[in-house]
């Protein structure tokens, strides 16, 4: 019912949710029910790839929430994604039990290898699924809350904020590369066996993970939609467009920003947590600052401030990446990605969906467009 209320004037959203829910049913079904010889069969690799795209779409959605609607260009969302992934990875590591190479009942292999004698305190509790899943949301959420609390209260805005979120990501990357941190150093966490008692590699588990990713994306969309459609969402947009003016009108800008930043980080963390069991590894390279910037371009391509567009952009760019990084075009992929950054910012500032909205709005001047196209904000500079 709430869903219906949310989607009354969101035609794109209806389409988006229908497609994602359709995928959630159809892809696992085609994978499991069709024999491998059938032309309709979806292979394990393809499903894993699509599952990865869905996680990236959720990540892009979370960034769109802060960037598209609140004007916070975070270059640290890759870090929240990776933190969620690490929380999930720690749970999966504890599930290996005695099946590791060193068959130690408690310590993961890399700790035995480093000659550690007992589990560090921050690994306590990760053998329980409920605790790990809580941490998937709590760790990125808490970091975002603390970071946002300080940064927004001090009115660090614009490019400055982007730079310090990038510095945060960089610091986390350096930290996770250290063996002494107890997160597996540069090898990261891998070689997972079970999730909730089901083998990670099994087709049914993979199909279920895919379906869960799709559902998470749907849920993420609904949450984001609920936020932006509410009164709170209106305040966020006004902060984006005229921060000082909003403050002078009596709104506590830093509270709104901290709230949306935290929600967004939690969504990114969930995306990372779903990503890890499907890819089978998490390592510190996920923290690379370049990764976080790449997420921004997904959102920019799809259309910032459109939610569904961010997800679309994530899928399109990543589909292009998988297509072009294999085969003879591989050396040119970075040229294409670079050109994408330049061309989209200059000629397609509203992204694909935003431009389409404009086009429809012009074709049907009397009709209200489905969703309010996010006008390109004029940052107060």
């Amino acid at each position, binding site marked *: 019912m709430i869903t219906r209320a949310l989607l009354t004037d969101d035609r794109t959203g209806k389409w988006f949710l229908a497609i994602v829910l359709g995928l959630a049913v159809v892809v696992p079904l085609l994978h499991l029910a069709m024999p491998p010889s059938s032309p309709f069969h979806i292979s394990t690799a393809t499903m894993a790839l699509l599952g990865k795209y869905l996680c990236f779409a959720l990540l892009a959605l979370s960034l769109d929430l802060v960037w598209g609607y609140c004007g916070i260009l975070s270059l640290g969302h890759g870090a929240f994604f990776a933190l969620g992934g690490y929380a999930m990875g720690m749970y999966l590591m504890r599930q290996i039990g005695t099946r590791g190479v060193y068959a130690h009942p408690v310590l993961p292999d890399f700790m035995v290898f480093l000659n550690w004698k007992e589990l560090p305190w921050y690994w306590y509790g990760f053998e329980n699924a409920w605790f790990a899943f809580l941490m998937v949301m709590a760790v990125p959420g808490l970091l975002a809350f603390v970071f946002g609390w*300080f940064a927004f209260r001090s009115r660090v805005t614009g490019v400055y904020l982007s730079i310090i979120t990038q510095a*945060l990501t960089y610091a986390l990357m*350096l930290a996770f590369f*250290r063996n002494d941190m107890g997160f597996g150093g540069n090898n990261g966490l891998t070689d997972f066996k079970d999730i909730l008692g089901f083998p990670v590699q099994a087709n049914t588990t993979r199909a279920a993970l895919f379906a869960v990713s799709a559902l998470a994306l749907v849920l993420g969309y609904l949450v984001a939609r609920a936020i932006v459609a509410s009164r709170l969402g209106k305040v966020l947009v006004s902060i984006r467009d005229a921060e000082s003016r909003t403050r002078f009108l009596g709104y506590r800008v830093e509270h709104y920003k901290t709230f949306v930043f935290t929600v967004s980080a939690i969504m990114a963390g969930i995306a990372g947590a779903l990503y890890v069991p499907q890819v089978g590894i998490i390592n510190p390279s996920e923290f690379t600052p370049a990764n976080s*910037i790449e997420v921004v371009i997904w959102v*920019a391509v799809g259309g910032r401030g459109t939610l569904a567009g961010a997800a679309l952009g994530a899928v399109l760019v990543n589909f292009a990446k998988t297509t072009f990084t294999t085969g003879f075009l591989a050396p040119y992929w970075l040229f294409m990605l*670079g050109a994408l*950054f330049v061309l989209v910012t*200059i000629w397609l500032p509203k992204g694909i969906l935003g431009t389409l909205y404009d086009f429809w709005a012009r074709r049907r001047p009397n009709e209200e467009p489905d969703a309010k196209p996010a006008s390109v904000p004029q940052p107060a*500079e």
Partner: protein
Amino acid sequence: MSRLIRLCIVLASLVAGLAITPQRAVAAPEDLAAGLALIAKDSFNDTIAGIDAIARSGAPHSAALVEALQDRRLLIDTANQKVFYRDAAGAVRDAQSNDVAADPPANLTAVRLNNRVRGAVNAAIGALSLMNPDPVRRIQAAQAVMKSRDPAALPVLEAAIAAEKIANVRMELQLAWAAVTFNKADASLDKRQEAVALLREAGTRDAVSILRSLPADAATPLREATSSAISSIEQRLALWGYAQNIWYGVSLGSVLLIAAIGLAITFGVMGVINMAHGEMVMLGAYTTFVVQEFFRTSAPGLFDYSLAVAIPLAFLVAGGIGVAIERGVIRHLYGRPLETLLATWGISLILQQAVRTTFGPTNREVGTPQFMSGAMEVGGLVITWNRLYIVIFAGLIFVGLLLALRYTPLGLHMRAVTQNRRMASSMGIRTGRVDALTFGLGSGIAGLAGVALSQIDNVSPNLGQSYIIDSFLVVVFGGVGNLWGTLVGALSIGMANKLLEPYAGAVLGKIVLLVAIIFFIQKRPRGLFALKGRAVEA
């Protein structure tokens, strides 16, 4: 090769032996006969005693004998208890008279060696080359004696000190003497005290380790003198270590300064963080590489001057590309700083990949001119020339830029646009042109940074990436629109980084620093030296 060197040593010490024999009161020809008699017994203990005797004898060919022993060319005629050696030319000579033996006995056996004997041989060679006419050799010999601390070398050492005229060689010899005397349990207390004083004055790590080797049963005054010497040396070393770290900090700070200063002016004037700035640095480094390649192939003799060509060229290349980027891309993104950040990031990807396809992904070798290689020592500081030149270079760029901003029309316009773009525009300043030139200037300086960095870092397509985040931090830390802020920011970040390193390790130190900067930005969101006025808080 090493044989050749050894031969030289032998010859040189022969000559030296000849030269100094008359002055030496301790020279005792009968030692030679006694030594040879000991060696003829061919037991390890006797051989060692024999080596000492030969070294003491001062015979002109004593070095040749010891040398022969080392190479198993020292031969014994066991029947007659006579010793011969085969010289480098292969002729067999009588060890006593050094004459070529006309009719050498047939059954000669080489003198046996073990590690103890080899040690004695090395010490003896060291002692013998203390008289070498080549001062470098003498210093090496003194250092060898200092390491071996062989009491047998003492008489030769004392003679050498008496004969030495060059001050620093004399100091080395005295140090060696101190090391040996200090370790010699039967030396007089006065002499050992004197040795402690000498070692204390030297104040090196070697001296500390020699002083530490004092046995616990030594006389109390000696022990006290030693421990006070050790603590004084260590204090001094710690101080020098601190100074060395500060120097490293200054050096890193100067690198950050040249990498960041171009970024600072573009950021100041245009409010744009240029993500492709690191790639401008990289292009400067590759320009250096190309110029050097050209010099290598067509004018190898002028190689030392290649940097003089590379510096202006790198400025022009990077600056030209900067102007092109500004006119082609950034111009279209006015008032949208976050989008500019993305677009320049895209440009940086393109430039990186372009360089990777042109020059390959691996490191390219950039040579260092003669005058920039090597190091100098100032007290306990080791300062490499290339680092010193980079510090000077950074200083020159800084001062040059400061003057340009202060006294040129472009500088005036740039400052005006930084302070208030619309007002400047209303006063008739063509802000678009100022933007393009500023961007070109900033990029050109990045190119200069590339020339400097090519001397101390790997020239690879990723060169820029490794500096870019640090450069951003310098700029936001220092504040916008003020070059002094960048200077202070660069130096304090460089210094903090290097001073943290000994305690926290390189990586953890860096993490601590990043977190500290993030907290600092909370306190002063516009950096250390923020511009005051209404224009900032739009």
